[in-house]
């Protein structure tokens, strides 16, 4: 049960990289063509892609794009209505909503991608190992995942924040821990069903090791649902980060986060609706964009849908 990790991981990884290289060099142009065609054929996917590119662009060039300092406001302009000077108005401290929105894009990307990255890698690995080996390995891994799942996400995050303190790093750690079981469960279930396939037995009969079977044969077959989960998760993570920011253990006060802006603004919904609506709309658009791109990726990457799309 321990043998699969006897140092052949590096070999497999370089093997995979080689494979991709050769794949690109030799007669695989058609696969790339198909990917582009399927991925770009739906207008909604293109729409999502444009939104995400805009988000990345905004996050990178926030300093240049923002008309005002997002952190220091002019109290004289507190709760200003939209005007030529403040396109989307200002909040109670006189900070420009548009500028805060632009800087908030950084938080969204950082929290979203880093958290999903950590949670997906850890969760997929745990689920794959548990599903493939079964027995005592499975019991140890999946029961601890179940224990983690037993806590509501926010409660778990609160617990972690209480130990580690607030701030964006701890938000990422807390959300990663809270979302890992989801990936582990999904991957576990997929592994259980995929490993029963004849081709896994056939590969074993050809001399494939456990590690090779897991990485080269089971993982690629499990990817489409996992990709969808990742993109859905990105949306809900943005919302969870907003929730954490609201109860005070998220982004520390001067920092700009869309979720926190929604919650900060709701008290002025009657007089200054844009304070909540603008970041709310931004969250909605980004979550929607992630879902659309995820869908498109799944359809384009899954060779089993070849010919259908």
């Amino acid at each position, binding site marked *: 049960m321990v*043998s699969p990790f006897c140092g052949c991981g590096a070999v497999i990884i370089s093997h995979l990289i080689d494979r991709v290289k050769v794949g690109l060099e030799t*007669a695989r142009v058609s696969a790339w063509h198909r990917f582009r065609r399927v991925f770009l054929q739906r207008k909604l996917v293109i729409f999502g892609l444009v939104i995400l590119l805009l988000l990345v662009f905004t996050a990178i060039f926030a300093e240049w794009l923002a008309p005002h300092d997002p952190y220091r406001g002019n109290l004289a302009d507190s709760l200003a209505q939209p005007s030529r000077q403040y396109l989307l108005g200002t909040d109670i401290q006189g900070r420009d909503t548009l500028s805060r929105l632009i800087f908030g894009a950084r938080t969204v990307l950082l929290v979203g991608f880093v958290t999903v990255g950590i949670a997906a890698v850890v969760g997929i690995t745990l689920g794959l190992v548990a599903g493939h080996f079964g027995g005592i390995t499975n019991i140890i891994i999946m029961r601890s995942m179940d224990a983690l799942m037993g806590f509501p996400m926010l409660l778990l995050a609160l617990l972690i924040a209480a130990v580690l303190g607030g701030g964006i790093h701890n938000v990422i750690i807390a959300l990663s821990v809270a979302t890992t079981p989801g990936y582990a469960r999904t991957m576990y279930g997929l592994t259980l069903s995929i490993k029963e396939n*004849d081709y896994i*037995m056939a590969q074993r009969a*050809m*001399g494939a090791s456990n590690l*090779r079977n897991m990485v080269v*044969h089971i993982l690629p077959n499990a990817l489409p649902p996992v990709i969808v989960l990742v993109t859905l998760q990105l949306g809900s993570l943005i919302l969870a980060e907003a929730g954490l920011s609201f109860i005070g253990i998220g982004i520390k006060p001067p920092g700009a986060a869309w979720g926190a802006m929604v919650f900060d603004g709701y008290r002025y919904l009657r007089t200054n609706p844009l304070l909540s609506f603008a970041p709310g709309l931004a969250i909605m658009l980004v979550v929607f964009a992630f879902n659309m791109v995820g869908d498109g990726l799944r359809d384009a990457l899954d060779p089993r849908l070849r010919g259908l799309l």
Partner: protein
Amino acid sequence: MPELLMVNNLKTQFNTEGGVVKAVDGISYHIDEQEIIGLVGESGCGKSVSQLSVMQLIFPPGKIVGGEVIFEGRDLLKFEAHGPEMRSVRGAKIAMIFQEPMTSLNPVLTINQQLTEMLELHLGMSRQDARERAIELLGMVGIPDARSRIDDYPHQFSGGMRQRVMIAMALSCNPRILIADEPTTAVDVTTQAELLELMKDMVEQSSASLIIVTHNLGVVARYAQRIYIMYAGRIVEAGTTEDIFGDPRHPYTIGLLQCIPRLDEEKGRKLVPIEGLPPNLINMPPTCAFLPRCSDKSERCSQEPWPPLKHLQGQHYIACHNSY
């Protein structure tokens, strides 16, 4: 010819909730170099499990509980099931083809990726060499236009084509033995014949041996030199193909032959089915498992335990109290 693979008293059991299923209950057989043998029996008689046991591909709740598998002077069952020694035997020395060509290839990898994997893994070939060899192999198994088809995915091939790819894959590392586990059950009759001819030719070319596992006596009649008949986890009759078809002795073998039509018999003979069902492998009685269905039973059969294989003459063996 020297013996290439020698299986002695192999036992494999499955521990289920209902009890212990003795799927393979002490079978012994051997295969010589460049020989083709057939392993025949109905569904659930343990023929596939016996072959998977040879490869140590039995997973819980299954367990190999006894016996030895001598291959090239070493007992394969002494190796750790997923250790490097066993892995270097699988695929490289003993290869296996499975029943379902439609699901035996990984759907998300191209044929090239799956074929070259073996060559790189077992023979240490470079990527380009492996690709060239893979194209050559595909050509050998009769895939037209192999150079362009090699980058296709499995779903772009028909069932027969996929089984050809499986044959190419299994023979890619020049194994000493090819085990074909019902290789033609899932394809239509014309393709069956083509595939069997192909397998025979390929095995002869690489001077390997072939074990055909099947429930179809017609398949082995043409290709096998020797045949083992299995029933309820045991071998009940063994002999050359002439022995089995010309002079069957076990009531089960006789029954099997009576329920298939033959071209060389007089017109109007009725096909005779074997009455009843194969036994439940849980809680088997100590007596002969075929007893309830036997048309030739005697007093002795219900009193004495299932007899071991007895030598008749030549290579002909039989496990029965009465027929000799």
